[in-house]
């Protein structure tokens, strides 16, 4: 039997590419501000087979977010569709069907109705449409996760801008400019866990 999932943990199934940087940071910032802790496949140290590590991570998280907005064919010379995100969504759906009380998954897209073409088997489940914007990510996270005392979108944007302005220091600390790097992700999280006392925002002056 797998252990009970962490009730505040969210597995983030996202594309690790340059165009997604700002939305990736937005997901991390937004989830922390809703009192949730993001987890990424890249945070798990190597050793075991990657798929095994990913399924263990999904099992340990009460929720998961699957961003299918960039499943398109890459522009590289050998154009290849990106299957990792649908693959991880499929694994999650199987896990959730077998353990309905232990997991809830959410699908995000940037465009309305595209999912009906890219993954028509998901018919019957509406995705959260973030329009490919940071503000849209915050709006949809607040729609998906309802929690008393959740901050407003402008307040979430405040934190986002501050975190964004600190990114270079975090990159420098870790000797990389890759925001998806495990050490960068954990340092970003460290910054945001330090704000736990700021949340719920009911503690803040209105």
């Amino acid at each position, binding site marked *: 039997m797998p252990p009970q999932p962490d009730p505040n943990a969210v597995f983030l199934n996202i594309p690790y590419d340059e165009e997604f940087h700002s939305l990736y940071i937005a997901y991390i910032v937004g989830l922390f501000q809703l009192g949730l802790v993001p987890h990424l496949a890249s945070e798990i140290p190597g050793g075991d087979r990657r798929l095994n590590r990913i399924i263990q991570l999904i099992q340990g998280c009460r929720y998961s977010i699957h961003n299918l907005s960039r499943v398109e064919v890459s522009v590289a010379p050998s154009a290849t569709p990106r299957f990792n995100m649908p693959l991880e969504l499929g694994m999650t759906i199987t896990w959730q069907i077998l353990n309905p009380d232990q997991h809830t998954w959410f699908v995000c897209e940037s465009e309305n109705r595209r999912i009906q073409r890219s993954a028509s088997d998901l018919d019957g489940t509406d995705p959260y449409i973030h329009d490919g914007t940071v503000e849209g990510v915050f709006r949809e996270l607040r729609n998906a*996760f309802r929690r008393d005392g959740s901050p407003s979108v402008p307040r979430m944007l405040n934190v986002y801008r501050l975190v964004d302005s*600190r990114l270079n220091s975090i990159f420098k*600390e870790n000797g990389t400019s890759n925001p998806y790097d495990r050490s960068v992700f*954990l340092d970003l999280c460290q910054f945001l866990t330090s704000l736990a006392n700021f949340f719920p925002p009911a503690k803040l002056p209105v």
Partner: protein
Amino acid sequence: MPRPVAHITAPWPTQEEMEKSLGISKARKRALQPLVDEFKAQLSRLEESQVTTIEREKRRKRASAA
């Protein structure tokens, strides 16, 4: 079509609980502390400045209504 919605009633997690979930080491936490403190102070100042702006606007409205 339905969309799943999570109605979270669990208490807001503490900093320690979040750190445990992520496996953040104490050494890394110590190393980042100066940057984190600066970040928190900056956020506090920003929040405070916005509160002041909102309060100022409320006062202006009250004054014009009087």
